[in-house]
């Protein structure tokens, strides 16, 4: 079983089973964790803001312009900020660690 590891805003860590082809936002949302994802994943709202563990960050595909533009509207940005809806889960990301950014 492939999985992702998510830290919530209270610092609790959960392991979520992750299916290949879903986005990190969808995996986190469908597990019932508190991620707003207002636009439903079309990269139009910046409410699925995540911090990706530094060791994993470099393994991700680079940000598209769309994602970079939406991050312009987010707060509390860090160098490892990404939008969960723009990261598609694959085999290579099994065990990836992410943290929900503050709302």
């Amino acid at each position, binding site marked *: 079983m492939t999985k992702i590891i998510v830290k919530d805003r209270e610092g609790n860590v959960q392991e979520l089973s992750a299916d290949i082809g879903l986005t990190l936002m969808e995996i986190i949302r469908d597990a019932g964790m508190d991620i707003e994802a*207002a*636009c*439903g994943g*079309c990269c*139009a*709202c*910046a*409410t699925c803001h995540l911090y990706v563990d530094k060791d994993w960050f470099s393994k991700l595909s680079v940000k598209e312009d769309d994602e*970079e*533009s939406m*991050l*312009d*509207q987010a*707060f*509390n*940005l860090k160098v490892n900020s990404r939008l969960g809806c723009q990261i598609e889960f694959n085999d290579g990301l099994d065990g990836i660690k992410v943290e929900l950014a*503050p*709302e």
Partner: protein
Amino acid sequence: MTDHTDVVIVGAGPVGLFAIFELGLLNIKCHVIDNLDKPGGQCAELYPEKPIFDIPSRTSITGQELTDNLMRQVKPFHPVFHLNQQVEKVEKLNDSEWVISTNQGKIIQAKCIVIAAGAGSFVPRKPPLEGIENFDGKTVLYSVKDKSIFKNKTVLIAGGGDSALDWTNELSKIAKVNLIHRRKEFRAAPDSVSKMLELEKNDILSFFTGQLKGISAGSNKSLKVQYQDNENLHYIEVDYLLPFYGLKMELGPIVNWGLNLHENKIYVDTEKFETSVSSIFAIGDINTYPGKLKLILSGFHEAALMAQVCFKYCFPDKKNVFRYTTVSKDLHKKLGFK
């Protein structure tokens, strides 16, 4: 002055707009209230250019095209739009009427209310800075109503989109403008970007990269704003801060209307799409029921069923004769179809 109508629709997104059509077919008149400056809701604000593929009979249609088509479709029914305002209060006037008031002082009397508010109304995204609420509406402004107040003042504009750049360029004519954005790239019209860079080159405005970190009262000017560039903290004193970080959706005052809510969605039955309060309906993404799918096409269906029930509230003594649009002479006349 109080307006009178049959139905007030809260929200001018695709489902709210189609509700005008379904109600109009039954000769029910509507007023529509929306907090955006234009109809279309999320379709027009979030993804006007993105194609939608699951609108029946349309292989692909953008959010803006869908909005424009719906506006044409409802035109014969003469809906009255009240934009740039949010419904604040809903009060029962008597057994068959409601009084709806907005934050812009508009008051409307109606027999039914249809909430088609999607994920809530669009409001400015406010930077999460401790104590910023003490300055909101005074020296921290999320929109510009009267630009003369900035004359000869020092202003900090935050953001990298069209609003931020447009106001940076405009206010530079009368004020000392500082612009802050997290990177020196902008998602604004290329014209405004080059104009801004030109102003910066000529020392008419100052640009900083960084993120806002804190706000407090200043010693020389009204605000002291803290910002972070990489690991370094800086301060700037200004008279006004104008944050332009786009819009977000918020349920807003609807939570206080005494409706049965479930996780910020309004619970409805699937026969009438009525809420726990009779003659208040909820359709589209804002409602919930077993099996709910948040699709525009589900909202269209919900609008049609809701309209049948609204008819009974609006015209209790009349009989509703169901008629297809292909045969309705009344509709053909309205559409000018011969």
